[in-house]
């Protein structure tokens, strides 16, 4: 059978070369009958062959194929360009927004940093402080920041007093004097009224409190609410301020009573200052204070400890003298501590 297929192929090749069917079959008489119809069929099959397409057909379909290629090219390029442009635009817009926010935010915070309560940008200042606290994770740094913020509240108070402005304020500090409705909290005279909300009782001298109230032109704060703070609450570090301001004045406290009234002796003198108007002598003060004596004396001793270096020399001299000296100092300083304190700062 393979021979038949081979002979057919030879015959086809011969016919391709120009031979006719009879001629090629003459060489294979034993297969002629079988091959003849096959070779005739091959002639018919060959007659079906189609000539090359016309130029018009070629041109028409060439255009179609090239147009499709152009579409593919566009589809290939467009998305990548579009994505690239879109992503570039997104990045650019983001950068611009970030830059605008950063610049405006920085300027805003900078502008707000010197504002006082009641100013339009003051909320920005307080918010920025909260943000700083929020992102300060180191506990020591956080505490230092809280103290710094409390110091800033007192600085704002002094500014308001100096400008004679009446604004809502809040600040914290230790109660250093309680004379009826007139308290002194961290060196700031606070007036208690009937409307003052005193939820946490009892508040005694030495208690850490937060005062919310309104400044008055005469240098006092009219309290709206006084809240007792925890023992570990961060209070303003007034000693530092004082040290900074009164460097070189140590040892001159007695001579420069007005200046020394603030600072290390700040709290102690005020305790006695409020008492002094009633009586010049300390003993009389104690007797007149009656119920609050113990706390006063207690706080007095604490105050001595706290008052620090300015009174250390005095305490070395004698205990009695110390009390007198400090009393005298406080007398001098006290007289100025309310108003002078503010004036000194100015």
């Amino acid at each position, binding site marked *: 059978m393979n021979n038949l297929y081979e002979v057919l192929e030879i015959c086809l090749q011969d016919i391709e070369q120009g031979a006719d069917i009879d001629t090629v079959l003459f060489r294979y008489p034993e297969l002629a009958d079988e091959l003849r*119809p096959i070779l005739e069929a091959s002639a018919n099959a060959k*007659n*079906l*062959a189609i000539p090359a*397409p016309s130029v018009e057909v*070629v041109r028409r*379909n*060439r255009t179609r194929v090239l147009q499709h*290629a152009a579409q593919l090219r566009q589809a290939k390029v467009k998305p990548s360009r579009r994505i690239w442009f879109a992503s570039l635009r997104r990045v650019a817009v983001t950068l611009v927004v970030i830059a605008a926010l950063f610049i405006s935010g920085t300027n805003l915070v900078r502008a707000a940093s010197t504002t006082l309560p009641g100013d339009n940008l003051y909320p920005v200042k307080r918010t920025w402080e909260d943000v700083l606290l929020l992102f300060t994770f180191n506990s020591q740094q956080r505490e230092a920041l809280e103290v710094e913020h409390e110091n800033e509240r007192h600085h704002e108070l002094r500014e308001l007093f100096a400008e004679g402005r009446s604004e809502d304020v809040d600040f914290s500090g230790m109660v250093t004097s309680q004379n009826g409705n007139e308290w002194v909290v961290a060196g700031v005279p606070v007036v208690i009224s009937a409307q003052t909300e005193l939820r946490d009782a009892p508040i005694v001298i030495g208690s850490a409190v937060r005062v919310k109230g309104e400044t008055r032109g005469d240098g006092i704060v009219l309290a709206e609410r006084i809240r007792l703070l925890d023992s570990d609450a961060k209070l303003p570090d007034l000693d530092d301020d004082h040290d900074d301001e009164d460097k070189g004045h140590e040892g001159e406290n007695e001579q420069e009573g007005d200046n020394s009234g603030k600072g290390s002796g700040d709290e102690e003198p005020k305790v006695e200052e409020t008492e002094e108007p009633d009586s010049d002598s300390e003993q009389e003060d104690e007797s007149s204070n009656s119920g609050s004596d113990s706390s006063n004396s207690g706080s007095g001793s604490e105050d001595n400890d706290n008052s620090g270096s300015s009174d250390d020399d005095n305490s070395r001299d004698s205990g009695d003298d110390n009390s007198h000296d400090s009393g005298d100092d406080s007398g001098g300083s006290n007289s100025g501590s309310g108003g002078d304190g503010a004036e000194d700062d100015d």
Partner: protein
Amino acid sequence: MITFTRNDILKTYVQNFFGSTLGRGAVQTTSAYDERRALDGLRSLDSQAIGAIYDQYFSEVYRYIRYRINDDTAAEDIASDVFVRLLEAVQKRQGPQSSLKGWLIATAAHAVNDHLRRQYRRPVEVLSDSLPDHGASVHSEVDARERNRLVQSAYAQLTAEQQHVLALRFGQGYSVEETAAHLKKNINAVKALQFRALASLQRQIGEVNYE
């Protein structure tokens, strides 16, 4: 002054791509290097490369398709569609790996089979005017037309594989070796298939003639 027409440039490009041009039934001499360059041009959708490939192969592809289906318009559409498929396949990295012409003819065969399947479901009588003009008289031309219609009807009765081998061998004029390469069969198998296809065609001609 020497001027180059667009066709001259294209011809040069094609020659650069494929070496010598191919005549009908000639064995393609495209080297593997040229094939790779052609495929690179296709991948980058280079118009010049695409045009060169089209010019090189369209005629062969069209003749194969037109041989298998007796419809000029459909053959034209299918032939250009084969090149569109080539572009899309190359973009998807599914194009020809070894032989560009082999891929085109195989794709054309699949496209024709699909077309014939659709046509089988919805048969359409097609009249074609593109019969070969051998310069014969009107009578002989009519006879030739009738004869061709008869053969085409018989051819349409063959299996797809038989049609395929006859289209390659007698429509395209490929050698047994080249046909074997396209069919991915050995030469003896192609010779046997060719024999059976011709025998079947002759039988079908007889049957159609009898009817």
